[in-house]
């Protein structure tokens, strides 16, 4: 295991220095480890251990041919098949590999095929287990695992007497049709069709049955209607919705199943070459199986004895699974460009590679270092000569003669990782996982990955105008985080020409937001050091000031005296009465100046909040403890007057104007305290501060609205989860069920408020705008585009939340039987047993 978290630093003479009390002397060693110098001579580890290691590392050894490795492992298994432990090792390791490292499926399948030649029983056992696991996955609606187990069985097709997995595909298709007929917005049926289409190539590559191509063509004719129809939700998950009319889209983004359908039809027409998939098993290699002992009776297998395919029933109706599914578009930064550095989207290799890579990435999120290693060695797991040599530079691809491959493994893997960062509505894991995976990939092979990343970054930057606003934000967040891991090094000079763009241009907004994110992870002075001089204007000296001035220290500020009094009292932890006295003075003075009561209240609120912020300006914990101390008064403000509540937010953003990131964080905490409400944040941003729509170009406002809405939607998710959690007492679940409509309505109101504000901007309907601009003005075009960008993001989010809530509420609430089951058995099926094998 990588020792990246080693506490001790071994660099230099860290050990054995004169003050290192941990120094070990030879005597210590002799005492502690008397046998240290008399290590027993090497003896091979036991067969179970060899088998486990061999299986886990399958495909990784480039010094031996894959079939040699498979034959050796098959031999280990066959020779020790009477050892239950060895059998278990084989079964469990194989199953786990199938559902965790899909790129290895054809390799472990080859081991089974070789083992079958000698011991039919060994193959039969693993097939039965695989069928059981498949059955379990399909019953639970765990579609990815079901897909992978089906793929494993498809890779074993030549073992089966009759049809093997094909009837399952037919059954899955029937279910898909049922679902699609029931609802045009159904996504589960699409997922089933995707599974069918992704199984067909493996089936045809590894089966012997000569009738299969014909059957596959027949099935493809049927899937065509589902796969080729445009899904109504697709437009919502389009990463490039903002392409101007007539302009070329940065990428096509066809739906994955429509691509698969066309690619497979193409393969069918060209005789199912399926050149990508590795062909490891070859019965003629049987004679080469190093048979340790011919007389031990292990050769009871017969390569011609076929197995019966276990009966598998696809339930009807099927279990849709717990995950809300959305149609998937094929996101690629590199496909279909002038130089073919990844397979074109017309080639089945593009989707097969993407599917195997993305599954590996998402399944192995618990060890990004291991995942990066698998990705780095991706070419090992496919047919030889499918890729150019690792680290081949992009420019070299031009010199490769026509007819040879020009696919770069680095481009394929980085493309796959980005497809997740840019997945809509959301990728499976936290975005930071994919960030860290790219970081690890760069560490493993900096020379090969960095140039690929560079092309990805440029591609994304060029397409910012048309990119979905949420994705633009993810891009910025990733890039800043990535750079913070690599000394903030980037070819900043490339973007100098873009610095003159107006603040409302998406590229300029991106650069400004990016630098701010960098500063938040580091500090202003450091970031300035990493930039060329033309960028300096974006990081003025004022950004270096960690602690903002207290504006009431300046007598020119209205109510300066009262401001100083309040902060003095707060620092002194004076009584509420004393503070109230000063606030009353403010109100009196304001009235004397002709300000109305509301304005007066806002002034005193500003003084109070600014004082809290100033006292807490040293760090987040300082401000939090101060807010906590003052929360009674702050909580009382909102119910008194909504303008005062919004004044709190104004004061935070005014005080931290040079570090709006801190302001966003503080508002986030104020939301937790319910000192401000989600609606007050939305209205403050999109009404009070919309600035004729200009506010929408500000990444901070996008962040502020995003965190606010995340809190709201996350709460609804949690309630839904509790509602449907059978371990929660039924009474409580009913209460939650009763509370849900109200929470949901609150969420809908917020989405509606956002829609109201941004749709107006998108339509150019803001009154003041019409007065200022007459038609073609560039600024008004920018603003309308921002309005449209925001509108799409929040309409999507609203639609996604509706779907999640609808699915969650559709689950019937059944009161559990009066006699409770013994603890732990209530809702555990075979699945938990399977987990216990772990």
């Amino acid at each position: 295991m990588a020792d990246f978290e080693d506490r001790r630093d071994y660099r230099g003479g860290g050990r054995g220095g004169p003050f290192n009390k941990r120094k070990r002397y030879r005597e210590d060693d002799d005492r502690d480890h008397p046998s240290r110098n008399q290590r027993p001579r090497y003896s091979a580890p036991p067969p179970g251990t060899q088998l486990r290691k061999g299986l886990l590392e399958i495909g990784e050894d480039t010094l031996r041919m894959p079939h040699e490795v498979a034959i050796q492992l098959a031999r280990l298994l066959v020779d020790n098949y009477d050892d239950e432990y060895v059998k278990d090792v084989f079964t469990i390791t194989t199953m786990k590999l199938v559902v965790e490292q899909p790129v290895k499926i054809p390799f472990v399948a080859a081991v089974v095929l070789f083992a079958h030649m000698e011991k039919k029983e060994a193959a039969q056992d693993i097939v039965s287990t695989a069928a059981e696991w498949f059955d379990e996955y399909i019953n639970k609606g765990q579609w990815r695992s079901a897909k992978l187990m089906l793929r494993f069985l498809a890779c074993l097709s030549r073992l089966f007497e009759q049809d093997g997995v094909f009837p399952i595909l037919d059954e899955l298709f029937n279910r898909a049709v049922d679902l699609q007929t029931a609802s045009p917005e159904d996504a589960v049926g699409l997922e089933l069709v995707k599974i069918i289409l992704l199984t067909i190539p493996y089936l045809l590559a590894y089966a012997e049955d000569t009738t299969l191509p014909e059957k596959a063509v027949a099935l493809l004719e049927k899937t065509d209607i589902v796969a080729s129809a445009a899904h109504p939700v697709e437009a919502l998950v389009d990463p490039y919705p903002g392409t101007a009319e007539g302009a070329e889209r940065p990428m096509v983004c066809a739906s994955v199943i429509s691509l698969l359908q066309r690619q497979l039809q193409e393969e069918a027409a060209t005789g199912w070459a399926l050149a990508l998939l590795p062909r490891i098993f070859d019965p003629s290699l049987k004679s080469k199986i190093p048979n340790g002992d011919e007389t031990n009776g292990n050769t009871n297998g017969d390569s011609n004895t076929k197995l019966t395919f276990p009966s598998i029933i696809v339930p009807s109706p099927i279990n849709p699974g717990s995950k809300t599914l959305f149609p998937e578009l094929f996101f690629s930064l590199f496909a279909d460009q002038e130089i073919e550095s990844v397979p074109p989207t017309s080639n089945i290799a593009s989707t097969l590679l993407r599917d195997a890579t993305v599954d590996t990435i998402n399944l192995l999120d618990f060890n990004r270092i291991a995942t990066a290693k698998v990705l780095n060695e991706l070419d090992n797991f496919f047919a030889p000569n499918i890729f150019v040599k690792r680290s081949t530079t992009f420019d070299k691809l031009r010199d490769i003669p026509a007819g040879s491959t020009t696919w770069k493994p680095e481009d394929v893997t980085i493309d796959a990782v980005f497809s997740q960062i840019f997945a809509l509505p959301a990728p499976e894991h936290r975005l930071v996982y994919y960030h860290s995976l790219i970081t690890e990939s760069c560490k493993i092979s900096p020379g090969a990955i960095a140039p690929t990343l560079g092309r990805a970054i440029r591609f994304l930057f060029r397409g910012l105008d048309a990119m979905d606003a949420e994705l633009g934000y993810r891009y910025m967040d990733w890039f800043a985080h990535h750079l913070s891991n690599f000394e903030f090094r980037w070819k900043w000079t490339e973007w100098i020409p873009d610095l003159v763009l107006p603040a409302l241009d998406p590229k300029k907004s991106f650069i400004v937001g990016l630098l701010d994110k960098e500063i938040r992870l580091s500090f202003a002075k450091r970031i300035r050091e990493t930039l060329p001089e033309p960028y300096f204007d974006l990081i003025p000296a004022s950004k270096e000031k960690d602690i903002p001035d207290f504006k009431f220290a300046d007598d020119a500020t209205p109510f300066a005296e009262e401001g100083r009094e309040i902060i003095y009292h707060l620092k002194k932890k004076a009584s509420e009465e004393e503070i109230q006295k000063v606030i009353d003075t403010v109100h009196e003075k304001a009235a004397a100046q002709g300000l109305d009561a509301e304005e007066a209240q806002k002034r005193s609120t500003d003084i109070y909040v600014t004082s809290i912020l100033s006292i807490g300006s040293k760090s987040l914990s300082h401000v939090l403890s101060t807010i906590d101390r003052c929360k009674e008064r702050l909580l009382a403000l909102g119910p008194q007057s909504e303008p005062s509540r919004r004044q709190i937010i104004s004061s935070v953003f005014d005080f931290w104007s040079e570090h709006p990131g801190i302001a966003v964080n503080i508002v986030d905490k104020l939301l937790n305290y319910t000192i401000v409400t989600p609606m007050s944040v939305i209205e403050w941003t999109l009404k009070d501060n919309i600035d004729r729509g200009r506010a929408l170009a500000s990444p901070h406002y996008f962040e502020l609205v995003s965190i606010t809405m995340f809190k709201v939607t996350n709460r609804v998710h949690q309630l839904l989860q509790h509602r449907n959690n059978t371990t929660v007492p039924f009474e409580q679940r009913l209460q939650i069920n009763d509370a849900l409509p109200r929470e949901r309505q609150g969420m809908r109101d917020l989405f509606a408020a956002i829609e109201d504000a941004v749709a107006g901007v998108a339509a150019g309907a803001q009154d003041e705008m019409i007065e200022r601009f007459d038609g073609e003005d560039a600024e008004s075009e920018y603003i309308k585009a921002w309005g449209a960008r925001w509108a799409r993001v929040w309409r999507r989010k609203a639609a996604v939340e509706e779907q999640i809530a609808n699915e969650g509420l559709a689950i019937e609430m059944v009161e559990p039987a009066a006699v409770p089951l013994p603890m732990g058995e209530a809702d555990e099926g075979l699945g938990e047993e399977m987990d216990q094998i772990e």
Partner: protein
Amino acid sequence: MPPFRLQNTVDRLDKPSSYAMSKYKKQARRRHDDPRDQQPDRQPSPDLEDKLADATTLYVGNLSFYTTEEQIHELFSKCGEIKRLVMGLDRFNKTPCGFCFVEYYSHSDALDCLKYIGGTKLDERIIRTDLDEGFAEGRQYGRGKSGGQVRDEYREEFDPGRGGFGKRYQEEVGYAGEYGQGN
């Protein structure tokens, strides 16, 4: 032979570190040797993994002394909302001494942090994360002789982010010792 178990095909990064495990084993051994612990009816103390099964707190190490709460917040909130952040302080000066505790609202957020943030850089240093039983008052202070962390006492390498050379090392070798004299 015990039955074969295989949790995953590759190691998981969301487990307690070998440091935490060895520290725990040491404590367990000490308890084992303690005659008070020999009573047969005494419950065995819970396994470390059980103890950390719901942990929401992380120990974060190898920070620069100059890394601020805001920076830590910025990075660590990528794994979920932060409930509490406690900076590690020099026992005497009450200044940051290169570690902190980050508490999340949920266990899974803490695990995500081990998986996705531990071993990456913050403020241009590779940071270390470890699952922690939970913060208790007093633990925010360094346990080294000079007030900081023990690891900073004897360090022979110059680390500008962590106060230069180790403090003991400076004194004993006399490195830059005059800085302490004031004239």
